[in-house]
């Protein structure tokens, strides 16, 4: 495959044009030069209209299939700690992982705005490939569309994922029980603030790195010490507050959080203070919320802290019988307040 420049470095000149999505030779070239070499696996290389997966192979991992899809439209495309490609893999892998599934296969649909630099596209595709390799999943089928300028913003990605849930694992938002402990795997709000700062709309200078990371390894470590994890979600848009409200509603229980136990990185806390944001509602891309039986809480916490993506894990609250459907925060000051679901976007206060 002729894709290397004189110094052995991949070289991609020019921009993506509508012809690259036209189904003809330009598109074929784009696929052969950029996409196939990056994803490099036999299922994709067959270039059929679909990937075929052996059922027997799936059955070796468990007894239920987990299937999910998500679209990624983040701006800017590249931010501290990640980029849209990495995000597109982590997001879908994490949606699978929080069911307890082992993530196996991804699809990848690219919607490209004409005029995108070919080199940038190659970089994002390489980022998808690298993250997928690190997460142990294969991109086995895909699609590429090019749209007119203005019809998309540089690059949108959709990934769907398939994973297999081991027998005996039964995680659901409706299984929280009074007495259970609530655990998070580290500092909240890093992704939300990193993106806000990367947009350069604020005259704030601070180093915040997105937490964008795959979590299936952490979940495996947690399941190894407690197969009976009751609830598990990754706290993306809407943050931990939204996830906990979903748990409280589905399980018909109350959830009591302790503000002083919630890990928030000092810079994020400072930015929230200035902008009037609440870290409980900020987006994360590598943080999960677990509800586990009290008897196993310490073991799960220890297992999480021993894992690189959970070293700052903390027990942040517990499940109560009353008030059903409500999340309540005991404030650091000694008072308490309701942590409700968010209305619209979290907009900064003006004074």
């Amino acid at each position, binding site marked *: 495959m002729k894709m290397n420049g004189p110094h052995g470095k991949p070289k991609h000149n020019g921009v993506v044009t509508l012809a690259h999505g036209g189904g003809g030779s330009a598109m074929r070239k784009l696929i052969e030069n950029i996409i196939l070499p990056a994803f490099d696996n036999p299922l994709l290389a067959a270039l059929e209209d679909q990937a075929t997966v052996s059922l027997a192979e799936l059955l070796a991992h468990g007894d239920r299939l987990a299937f999910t899809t998500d679209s990624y439209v983040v701006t800017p495309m590249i931010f501290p700690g990640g980029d849209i490609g990495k995000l597109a893999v982590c997001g879908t892998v994490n949606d699978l992982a929080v069911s307890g599934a082992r993530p196996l296969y991804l699809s990848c649909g690219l919607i490209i705005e004409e005029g995108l630099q070919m080199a940038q596209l190659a970089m994002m595709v390489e980022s998808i490939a690298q993250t997928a390799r690190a997460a142990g999943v294969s991109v086995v089928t895909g699609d590429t569309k090019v749209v007119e300028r203005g019809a998309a913003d540089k690059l949108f990605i959709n990934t769907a994922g398939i994973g297999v849930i081991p027998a005996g694992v039964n995680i659901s938002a409706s299984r929280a029980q009074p007495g259970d402990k609530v655990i998070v795997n580290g500092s909240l709000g890093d992704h939300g603030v990193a993106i806000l700062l990367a947009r350069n709309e604020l005259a704030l200078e601070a180093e915040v790195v997105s937490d964008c990371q795959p979590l299936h390894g952490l979940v495996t470590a947690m399941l190894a010490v407690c197969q009976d994890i009751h609830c598990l979600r990754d706290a993306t848009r809407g943050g931990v507050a939204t996830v906990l409200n979903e748990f409280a509603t589905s399980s018909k229980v109350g959830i009591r959080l302790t503000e002083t136990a919630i890990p928030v990185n000092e810079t994020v806390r400072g930015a929230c203070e200035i902008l009037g944001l609440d870290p409980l509602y900020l987006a994360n891309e590598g943080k999960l919320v677990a509800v586990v039986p009290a008897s196993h809480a310490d073991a799960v916490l220890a297992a999480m802290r021993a894992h690189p993506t959970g070293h700052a894990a*903390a027990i942040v609250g517990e499940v109560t019988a*009353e*008030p059903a459907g*409500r999340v309540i925060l005991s404030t650091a000051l000694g*008072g308490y*307040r*309701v942590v*409700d679901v968010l209305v*619209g976007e979290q907009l900064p206060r003006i*004074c």
Partner: protein
Amino acid sequence: MQYADEFRDPVKARTLVDEISKLATPLSKARGRPLQVMEVCGGHTHTIFRYGLKTLLPEDTLEFVHGPGCPVCVLPMGRVDDCIALARDPNIIFTTFGDAMRVPGSAGSLLQAKAEGADVRMVYSPLDALKIARENPMREVVFFALGFETTMPSTALTVLQARREGIRNFSLFCNHITIIPTIKAILDSPELTLDGFLGPGHVSMVIGNRPYDFIAERYQRPIVVAGFEPLDILQSLWMLLKQLQEGRCEVENQYKRIVPETGNAEALAAVAEVFELREFFEWRGLGSIDHSGIRMRAAFADYDAERKFTLPGLSIADPKSCQCGEVLKGVIKPHQCKVFGTSCTPERPLGALMVSSEGACAAYYRFGRIDIKPVALAPVTS
């Protein structure tokens, strides 16, 4: 953050709460009702709910009445309609603070207008709006100037900067309001039962403490200018109750680290150069209040969107079912309003106080909708 944390110390908070409770009991007994303290500023309302101060204080002897100090909340619908009319002009880039985007006019909000194609941009400071004007010389940039004396100096200075640079495509849609006539209107209300005020710290940073003298002298109510951290508010409450106990009516300043006795002369000079009082201005929930609105002086007509463009300028009545006025005066609590949480929610606000996170009703809805009984929890081990 270390600086802020010192003002959130739970042990000190406990001590203050105990002292406040001790003062409140005999004072409320003598009145045969709970003491009523109005926090004028929406920033205080936010702190009270966010840190759960209300849940720490004795509710049978002390009540907060949440005042009119949220400039987003008290904006009348007709003015929002004017904003939308400006934003729909294809030649105009309409710039605004984020909170104002959700405020409903008679036919939708700026957020909806933006979705329908209007060029509405969220900014964090009027200087950001001026920058947009500099970068788009072929288009008109209008900044939605909003707020009490806190934000007035920054808009005034931005206009002066625009004039210095000779930027001609920048103007203000001026909706600044001033706090003093509003407090006076509340004090003149016949239903009034307020025992004292927590004064707005940020406004006072600009205007100083003397403009409040009439509250103590003419209306015989104590006022303490307060900061925005939880311990600021608790200490101010304690100072206020101490005045009541000792039979004093004074203007006291708890926020000395920020608020100079006579305000900020430079800021006041910029405001006086650019702005003047309007005869009257309409408030959502309170109706028209004399000399409460601010407009641009004739010398700055070129920077005044109201003079530069044609606006509908219609006055639109508040919905009949809305009881914001009664909540603002402390006659009823937010949850006692007929439409609270039913036809008026933060998602579809009917009344002013449900609009911004600093509005009393939105705060009640978000943070305090139910009676929460303290639950004893085992200490968290992590």
